[in-house]
């Protein structure tokens, strides 16, 4: 949805899922980039108030963009590269360990 800018000619598509839905990224992109390109703005709900969070600092410092990847919580979406078959899930609170949906 937001992926319109500055598209180079040859990019290798990577398929992953977010909360069970298939989304696409490009090789070399971070998870945050792929999620934003797919029109997602939030991929975590906070522990105390259950509020949505997404990308904030974009450079690994604020730890707001934490998400669950392949059953592992607290992964920084802004630093983690996309990979084929990656299963990404919204993190609720401290997140949960184990197989994602």
């Amino acid at each position: 949805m937001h992926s319109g800018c500055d598209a180079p000619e040859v990019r290798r598509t990577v398929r992953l899922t977010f909360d069970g839905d298939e989304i696409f990224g490009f090789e070399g992109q971070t998870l945050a980039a792929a999620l934003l390109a797919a029109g997602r703005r939030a991929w975590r709900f906070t522990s105390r108030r259950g509020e949505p969070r997404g990308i904030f600092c974009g450079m690994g410092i604020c730890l707001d963009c934490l998400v669950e990847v392949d059953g592992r919580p607290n992964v920084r979406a802004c630093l983690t590269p996309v990979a084929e078959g990656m299963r990404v899930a919204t993190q609720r609170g401290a997140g949960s360990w184990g197989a994602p949906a």
Partner: protein
Amino acid sequence: MIRHRLVIVGAGPAGMAAAIAAADAGLEPVLIDENPRIGGQIYRQPPATLISKETEPTNRAARRGAELLRRFQVQSSRMTVLTNTRVWTIFGHRQLGVQGNQGRETIEAEQLILAPGAYEYVPPFPGWTLPGVMTPGGAQQMVKTMGVCPGKRVLIAGTGPFLLVVAEQLQKAGMEVVGVVEAITTAEAIRAFPRLLEHPTLLGEGLGYLNRLRRARVPINRGEVVVEARGDAEVREVVVAKCDPQWRGDPSGQRTFVVDTLAIAYGFVPRAQLPQLAGCRMRFVNELGGWIPETDGNQQTSVPGVWVAGDGGGVAGALVAEDEGTLAGLAASHQLGALDSATFERAQRPVVRRLHRLRRFRAVLDQLSRIRPGLTTIPTPDTIVCRCEELTQAEVETGIDFGGTDLRTLKVMTRLGMGACQGCMCWPAAARWIAARSGKSIEEIGPLSVRPPLGPLSVGDLARQEGISDRTPAVSLGSSEGAPT
């Protein structure tokens, strides 16, 4: 443990320049960076798989970056460059605990140059935790290295020339930039103008951005601050108010922008954790972004053999960073006996001269964009002030009023600064706010205490045997591997 003569942490302009100077002196420096590619936030290139057809540098900053990268490439065979590698602690003064994709290692540096850079300063305001509110640098990285627009309609706000750079990049990438909101008043900017003539090239660069934005019909609004972001699932509108020279918002002079993205920051904060862990004596300089290590004329900190260069030693931008990096690289090489005194002094002289002039220019900018106390009046009692622990202003204020007027006490009382970001996001604003409320000086309140590990580190990773290329874990912890800090 591995020993190296010269280790440089951070591969932005300062770290790269230091590595080049050391390699030129015949040393074989080790350069460590947590990111997948060198360049720092300013010069980092997109991954090879995303390189677009546009290869010519488009502006002067990009050309400087390209030139630095080229000089780096020439010497790169003499260097060990460890990307995706993080320094999670410093033992003693110069023993680095490093963690990479392939394991962990302790590296003892005979000489250590720290070039950790800076991050953007976003003081709290109502709605600042909404998705779609992000830093200008975060939005810029999305567009510049990832080829993704973080939204469709964006307002860019805060202070400093970086806002203009980001405005142009987002606009060129196809986002609708509804405006730039700069806290500095027009009158103040005009008064500073003659002193900025000190460096006509840099002034010209800034004016170039202004002209191009004007041509692109992006309104620049001065003397205004963002007082609220509104929305439910994400930001929908942003309320902006006229402000006084202390940056206090005027409730009667408000207007609203309808956007899906707000990129906001009031300058930068030096990343002081590494110098603090190394035991460097720190001081607070508001104009340079916060707590910075004390340095001598050659960038050496109070700890012999530990040097600091670039924004991590006081925010001053990429040009100053590059020169400081060169200076630290030369001086450390001299310490190690790779440069004799005469050669060192000859090499150092033009750099010192250039730095002197750059710093005079920067001093005007720094004075102009220094953080004003009015920003602390923007949050309301229910505004979240600690993003990680989700503490409201009212909650933290109660802590302050019950005696939590230094970091340690306030942290114990409220959990402020105890979350995943380790206080990076909340502390710079909280310290100013405690100062305003308690009458203490920022120096009395002190810097954020630093506890390793810096950033999340799994118990599994810690339990692994040392050896950066050793992929076999000494202890298999199964699924507990990767537990959060």
